[in-house]
């Protein structure tokens, strides 16, 4: 299989436009800062995080039973529940529902799961026009892109670029980039689509085992607009999105929006329990690699994710390389621990796209040990991923030197000597990635060991 572009290469490309990368960094840092201000106002913030993490522990340990309970309740409420073992099966379920109900027009609110399953492409190939109704998603749909962020899918685009896209697709005035004006244009455009739609597809933020109901959080109310107008509601849900009781919901709702954007709650938090009279509601429960991840002791915690995006906003690498550099549906730190589980070869560079600074783990509202899992994926990848001969050789050699004190001193001496006598061009060349933009440390006259032998008379 051909190797995917490495994260490093994609990041270097993005950074070439330093003005844009700087703007991207500042924009997301601003969101992270809003999160801080908002979280600070909750005295029990850290307790909430712990609780949220523990509830998810419970869910992951009892997923089988909770899912069955959820299914039973949902069915009793009149929801048709379908199971999908993978993306293909999920997409086929959706197609079958559309065909059975002779749906011609459909709208879709934001769902990263349907991105993961490639639903839009699948349906477009079958002749359907899928209209994304989340403003950000509609913008990138016009622009033929995928989301670069799971909460703010068009965050990589500047106002002016959005103005240009709207000019091309919606006929807004050329050069107009006033957000109010553009939003109004989008509203008019989408309103038509809402009215025409026979089916509405939504994601699911939380499924509640106890009640068989589910919750969808949006800021634009587009999920509600879609589902209230259409006869058919298809909700697509990853099986890990479950929580045990309605009473647990508050814990997550308090954390979700604050972590995501600093809002105290999403503008719309919609609870769905049963279809309205004469209408239909479907719920597709998708595995697509999740039970596999559940079986990986070191990585199962990644399934606690509530997709708030905070780890992206805080990540100094994500902020400077943008979501596309990850080449995976879920980018950023959480994507880097989820994606290798889906395709180790394709995503083998992602766990290395981190300094292991740990900011992601500390910001995560469900306390996923993201940076520790990045470290663990590295150990897996060097064993099972694509071979990296020279890196492996260097590390093995380094390991040998470091285990033999005399050899270490000798190698150190040689390196120091050659560094101090070599002409610059010898040291700073294209093989020396360190030295492209950085000086190497100056070579001191003596090492600490030399000094210690001279100045402290211990014989140890």
């Amino acid at each position, binding site marked *: 299989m051909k190797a995917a572009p490495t994260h490093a290469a994609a*990041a270097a490309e993005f950074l070439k436009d330093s003005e844009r990368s700087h703007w991207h960094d500042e924009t997301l*840092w601003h969101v992270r800062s809003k999160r801080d201000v908002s979280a600070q106002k909750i005295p029990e*913030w850290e307790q909430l995080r712990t609780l949220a993490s523990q509830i998810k522990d419970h869910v992951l340990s009892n997923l089988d039973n909770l899912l069955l309970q959820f299914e039973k309740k949902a069915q009793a409420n009149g929801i048709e529940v379908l199971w999908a073992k993978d993306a293909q099966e999920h997409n086929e379920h959706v197609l079958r529902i559309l065909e059975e109900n002779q749906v011609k027009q459909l709208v879709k609110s934001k769902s990263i799961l349907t991105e993961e399953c490639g639903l839009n492409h699948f349906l477009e190939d079958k002749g359907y026009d899928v209209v994304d109704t989340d403003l950000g998603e509609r913008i990138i749909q016009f622009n033929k892109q995928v989301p670069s962020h799971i909460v703010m899918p068009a965050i990589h685009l500047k106002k002016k670029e959005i103005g240009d896209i709207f000019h091309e697709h919606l006929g807004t005035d050329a050069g107009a980039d006033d957000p109010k004006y553009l939003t109004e244009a989008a509203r008019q455009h989408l309103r038509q689509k809402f009215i025409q739609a026979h089916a509405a597809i939504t994601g699911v933020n939380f499924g509640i085992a106890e009640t068989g109901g589910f919750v969808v959080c949006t800021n634009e109310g587009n999920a509600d607009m879609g589902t209230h107008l259409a006869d058919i509601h298809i909700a697509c849900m990853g099986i890990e999105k479950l929580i045990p009781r309605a009473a647990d919901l508050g814990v997550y709702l308090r954390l979700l929006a604050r972590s995501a954007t600093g809002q105290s709650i999403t503008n719309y938090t919609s609870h769905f329990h049963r279809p309205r009279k004469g209408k239909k509601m479907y719920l597709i429960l998708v595995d697509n690699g999740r039970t596999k991840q559940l079986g990986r002791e070191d990585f199962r915690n990644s399934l606690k994710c509530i997709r708030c995006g905070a780890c992206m906003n805080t990540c100094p690498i994500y902020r400077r390389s943008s979501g596309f550099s990850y080449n995976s549906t879920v980018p950023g730190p959480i994507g880097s621990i989820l994606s290798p589980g889906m395709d180790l070869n394709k995503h083998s560079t992602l766990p*290395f796209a981190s300094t292991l600074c740990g900011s992601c783990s500390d910001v995560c509202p469900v306390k996923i040990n993201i940076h520790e899992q990045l470290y663990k994926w590295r150990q897996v990848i060097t064993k099972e991923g694509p071979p990296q001969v020279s890196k492996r050789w260097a590390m093995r050699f380094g*390991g040998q030197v470091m285990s033999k004190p005399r050899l270490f001193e000798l190698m150190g001496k040689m390196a120091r000597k050659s560094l101090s006598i070599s002409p610059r061009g010898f040291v700073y060349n294209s093989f020396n990635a*360190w030295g492209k933009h950085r000086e190497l440390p100056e070579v001191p006259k003596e090492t600490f060991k030399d000094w210690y032998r001279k100045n402290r008379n211990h014989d140890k």
Partner: protein
Amino acid sequence: MKVGLFIPCYVEQFYPKAAIATLELLEKAGVEVAYPLKQTCCGQPMANSGYEVFGQGASDLFRENFAEFDYVVCPSGSCTLHAKEHILSNKEGEPKLYELCEFMTDVLQVKELKSRFPYKVGLHASCHGLRGLGLARPSELMVPDFNKPLHLLEMVEDIDLVHLARKDECCGFGGTFAVFEEAISVQMGKDRIQDHQEQGVAVITGADMSCLMHLEGLLRRDKSPIKVMHIAEILNGQEPDK
């Protein structure tokens, strides 16, 4: 109390002044310190690159070198964290491992320092020490504020400590990350430096020489007058290089 000094490999080779300052600081505090000469490295470079196995020899050597001590003190948050997580498990009978600042505040409970440093200083919070060892409150966590390295620096006479716009953003060193993700590593370093520069610092300090080595590399290439110094050097009252 028998204290063994662990000096990270690159500090031993390239930054002996930081090591000497660490030793002298501990000696001034009345601690009996020894430096086992057979030490090399904690094995972190191999492990963080995904080759934990090749770091095994270094780990074994580390354990051997320090078996006889009550405490091991190391002037690097990152190496301390790695050794804590992968070499010494803080079991009964094993030496207890501390990063220099936490050893001074938590074990020695240092209350005053006889040193002076009349310069504008920016403190770089290295991530592994910050979040891994808990040297300070990371900005993400909503817990009461504390900062051990800052607490020590505040004891230095005439020091002028600045406030940064992003007080604990990573500098982009990250071990082999600095090489394999060169472009982004460099950008992160430059951004960090700019924050310090905007506050007009003369010196950037921190508890991890590796981050400082990365920042120094950028500063020197840029011919910037800003110097980097390990926190031990400042606490020990050393002057910056001219």
